[in-house]
């Protein structure tokens, strides 16, 4: 019954590591998930989009790091209170939706006089809002001094929702979008029903990798 030395040591090592792993099983087991990437439903009403947009601006969008609502005095970035009412004077002849979209997708193309450029493109990292999320943000911005009109099916210069430009079956998908633009994302994430809010993180994010 003599057990060779190597065997004994092996058993000792195996037993000790197994013991510690066992201790590890005794404590509470909590898997901490990263914050949910909200998959927006496609059937949000405009009113819901306004509240969602507000939440996005609070959290993921980090908008209020720089912007304010209803503050005056020395500001880093333009105050957003009543912004929808000022669109016509800033960009005459452009709809407010197009103006907001431009401000979010290409912030440097129009700088409000008196302010320095410095806003990142919101659809790209590090913020990386999805096109749907940006629609909600636009809805909220419209509600500041105006009436929100945008819906989840609204298309603008930078984005055409999948449902808005119906593509005949059999055709190559997504090529129907206006040329030179970002291809419309294939619908899965947007069309995912509300139930798809799973515990596991979504494998396919529309947003960028570096979402801070």
């Amino acid at each position: 019954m003599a057990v060779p030395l190597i065997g004994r040591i092996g058993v000792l090592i195996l037993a000790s590591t197994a013991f510690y792993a066992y201790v590890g099983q005794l404590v509470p087991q909590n898997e901490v998930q990263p914050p949910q990437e909200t998959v927006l439903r496609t059937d949000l009403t405009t009113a819901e989009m306004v509240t969602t947009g507000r939440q996005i601006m609070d959290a993921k969008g980090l908008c209020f790091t720089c912007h304010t609502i209803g503050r005056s005095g020395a500001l880093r970035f333009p105050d957003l209170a009543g912004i929808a009412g000022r669109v016509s004077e800033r960009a005459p002849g452009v709809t407010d939706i197009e103006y907001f979209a431009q401000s979010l997708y290409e912030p440097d193309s129009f700088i409000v006089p008196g302010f320095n450029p410095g806003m990142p493109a919101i659809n790209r990292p590090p913020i990386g809002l999805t096109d749907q999320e940006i629609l909600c943000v636009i809805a909220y911005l419209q509600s500041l001094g105006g009436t929100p009109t945008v819906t989840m099916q609204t298309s603008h210069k930078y984005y055409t929702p999948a449902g808005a430009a119906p593509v005949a079956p059999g055709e190559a998908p997504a090529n129907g979008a206006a040329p030179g633009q970002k291809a419309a994302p294939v619908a899965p994430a947007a069309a995912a029903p509300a139930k798809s809010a799973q515990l596991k993180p979504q494998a396919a994010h529309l947003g960028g990798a570096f979402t801070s």
Partner: protein
Amino acid sequence: MTTRQIARGLTLAWLAVLCVGTGLARAQSPDIGTEAQREAGKVLYMKLCSQCHGEKGDGAGYATPNVLPKPRDFTSGKFKVRTTGSGALPTHQDLVNIIRKGMPYTSMPSWPGLSEEEVSNLAYFITTFSADFSNPEAAPKPIDLPSAPASTPESIETGKKLYEENGCIKCHGTLGRADGPSALTLKDEAGNPIRPANLTHSWTFRGGSSREDIFRTMSTGFNGTPMPSYLEALPPEQRWAITDFIASLSDTNGPGYTNLIVARPVQDPIDLAKGAESFASAPVARFPLLGQITEPGRSFHPPATSVTVQAIYDAESIALLVKWHDMRADKTGKNSPSLPIPPEEEAGGEAPSAAPAASETEADPFADTTEDTVAPPAEFSDAVAVQFPVAVPAGARKPYFIFGDSQSSVDLWFFDLARNEPLQFIGRGSGDVAVNDAGDVTGVASYSDGEWSVIFRRPLRASSGAPFTPGQFMPIALSAWDGSARERGNKRALSVWYSLYMEPETVPSAAGPMIRTALIIFGLELAIIGWVRSRLRSQARNEIRGEGRPQPAMGS
């Protein structure tokens, strides 16, 4: 059992001392302590008591708008729980006792952490609010509280008769479920609505649940409330008989709250027409209800304090029997989990309750039932809801206990008791409750003697909602609405999540695991013994041969 006996003995001894003390105290003015004691009491009072009873002792503290019954107004000199006659001041010891023990199921807590001296000082300070205490004329005289004869079936029977004869039924109801005809109209002297005690829930008695406590309450009455003193009206034996009857109404071991409903399998198909009979085999689970004080539209003191649930299931469906006590069956009006509560109603607390403003004069609950003392029909009907998650939760995460949340919704089985059939709702948060037309749930409801019995039935696997599987735990939560207290929507009594366990028809045998464990251990033992023996043999061999260094036994 022994502690009970000791407690009883102590109470008796205390009563005896009181009786002796009474004789001595008769000539003295009330015991209001020294200046220093009252000053010390004042400091404590300001810190611990004034938020409810008010800095002036007038019962108008910060908490007053939101609590029911209202905090005692010390300036009135009227105290509920005493050993003195009707209308008389309490003794110092009475005050000490109530501070120490508190009043169950009200916002008056017990203060076990305070020292004897601190409680005593507080009691002394309280006497400063009413001039009566310094009046030698008003010196409290404890009444005679004779010791208890044993409770017998006969005495209970006598008590039952006396209970009916002496008008107790008017408020407390035939079976003591606080459903008397005038129960809803009661007010205290200050004009605040007040609810009669539910005599089947002795654990909620304000003055304590022991037989001595009940006897004392009946003898002294509750000053300032419609509860009169029977000291003069009934001889002690009769009071004891009623006490025995009242004590027999409740399970003396307290509410026995649990956290689990065990659903028993039944052979015969469940027949709703048979009602509660079918549930005879299922154990009763009682859950505490609390006011919905988490979401706006709060209900701080709902009338229902607990609910009992039983569950059975057959091959196709599961049925739940939910029972709770309600002072009146409100079968008129409407109710729904999504009815809005105007913000101003919450701010006023319970004030606009069913108590009609018309009866300004103090209603005499013992007058013959007239139109005046009957509360008008409620605007809202009674209702009950059973809540399950829409999907069986995989881990710890359940939907939010108040009608779910946006990520995980709940399946509400809602029974508006003004209707004949239950409804189903999907809850995604208290502000987002939508009707679910699945029509899976059927049910019947009945009301008798202050108790609602509601049966819900649903197929084990239905078109909506989570499936019920034997051997599985399912979270369950309940809500109850009392229409006469204007409860609807978020304003209600509710429970947190508990569990419903579907007991499998055949419990897996323990034999397999037992044999496996025994064999493993047996094998280990044999291995150890074999190893020890072989080691010893080889050691012996080595010693004979005289080689090999001596090894300590079992050293390595």
